[in-house]
């Protein structure tokens, strides 16, 4: 069921210890920072977080990591120039890392939403990231077997939602949003605007409302970078 919420805190209610959370964004583009901050205030621990990266600077995902709420990161690119929070936790042995090639990460999330039990991908074949995994030669090419990544919750950011939960995104901030919304039991979306039903062209809907459970409008002025929440 679809619901609209007054605050990010209300939108993330019910996330409990041990949950797997898919978090949208590639770097800060599409990062649902207010929802992540609300998850930090919510206090759920022992989380598994799926995100392309492992936090930038000291805000958003980095702050959630810093608060000690995350047991495990599943991501493709944890190490960045400003990923010092993750780096310190990792070196101290305080966080688990499952490193996944970015395309396999995306395809595994997509598989979860689409009901695929697993698939063979050429990405990673013959590399250390395929170690211990089932492999198969298909038509002369090597493939690795990969499994879907389901989320208990997804936290994503879109540009607009209508009252049916249909979403559109903005430029490269779209990234993981559509596939994460479909892969989570409960998807939570922060949008700049909620518009009336019918205000989004049916041909241009990117995420149909069927994949959306909770929506909260966060005014875009507070979504500018450097807002420091």
């Amino acid at each position, binding site marked *: *069921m*679809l619901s609209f919420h007054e605050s990010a805190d209300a939108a993330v209610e019910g996330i409990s210890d041990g949950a797997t959370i898919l978090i949208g964004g590639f770097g800060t583009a599409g990062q649902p920072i207010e929802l992540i901050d609300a998850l930090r205030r919510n206090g759920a621990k022992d989380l598994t977080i799926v995100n392309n990266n492992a936090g930038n600077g000291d805000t958003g995902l980095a702050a959630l990591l810093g608060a000690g709420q995350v047991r495990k990161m599943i991501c493709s690119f944890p190490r960045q120039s400003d990923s010092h929070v993750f780096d310190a936790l990792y070196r101290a042995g305080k966080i688990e890392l499952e490193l996944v090639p970015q395309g396999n990460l995306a395809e595994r999330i*997509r598989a*979860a*939403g*689409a*009901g*695929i039990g697993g698939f063979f991908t050429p990405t990673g074949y013959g590399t250390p990231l395929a170690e211990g995994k089932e492999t198969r030669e298909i038509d002369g090419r090597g493939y690795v077997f990969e499994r879907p990544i389901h989320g208990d919750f997804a936290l994503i950011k879109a540009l607009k939602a*209508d*009252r*049916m939960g*249909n979403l559109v995104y903005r430029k490269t901030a779209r990234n993981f949003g559509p596939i994460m919304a*479909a892969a989570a039991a409960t998807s939570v979306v922060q949008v700049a605007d909620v518009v009336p*039903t*019918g205000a989004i062209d*049916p*041909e241009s*809907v990117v995420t*149909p*409302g*069927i*994949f959306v459970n909770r929506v909260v409008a966060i005014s875009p002025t507070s979504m500018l970078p450097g807002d420091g929440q």
Partner: protein
Amino acid sequence: MDTSRKLTRDEMARLVAADIAPGSFVNLGIGQPTTVANYLPEGSGIVLHTENGMLGMGPEAHGDEVDPDLINAGKVPVTELPGASYFHHADSFGMMRGGHLDVCVLGAFQVSVDGDLANWHTGAPDAIPAVGGAMDLATGAKAVFVMMNLQDRAGNAKLVRSCTYPLTGVRCVSRVYTEYAVFSLAGGTVTVEQTFGMEVADLQDLLGFDLIDGTAHSSAVAASSV
């Protein structure tokens, strides 16, 4: 609804419609299940999916509304409701197979007590087989409701211990709506929820396997939910 006589097809459709929760995402199969749409309550927020790439499907199109680019899975021209969306076939079937549809309603040749569904092929050797999206719907929807007559034209029961026709899906059906009764299926047990023109004992004789009588309970639930 009058339980002293068997249901008409429209009454069956009305019963199915009443069992679909507000706000559900629903796929109605080709044929009789399509008529369920006529009984979905106004303002229920129920959204219809058509597997050829649309959510928010409206009623059948007539006259000037007819648009060859806007059809349902039965290839009948339909209309678009506000808040609709279009998507390609892989996304549409991912939606089905990924468990995002709350309910699908299908016709059937046979349903077994375990919830196995046979609705795509009679097994006749000279038949040209055609499956369409039936297997995806049977496998993917959170709840699969079947609407069918209790017996075929030759008088054979269609709710059976084990399907003799080729299967569409395994252990997928949870409810069966017939002209004589509504059945719930769970874990190999068949419960009669409501009867129309037949007693539970008569149904049991006809079907030849044990039935749980849930009619008292169901009426109570129905009464309390009004």
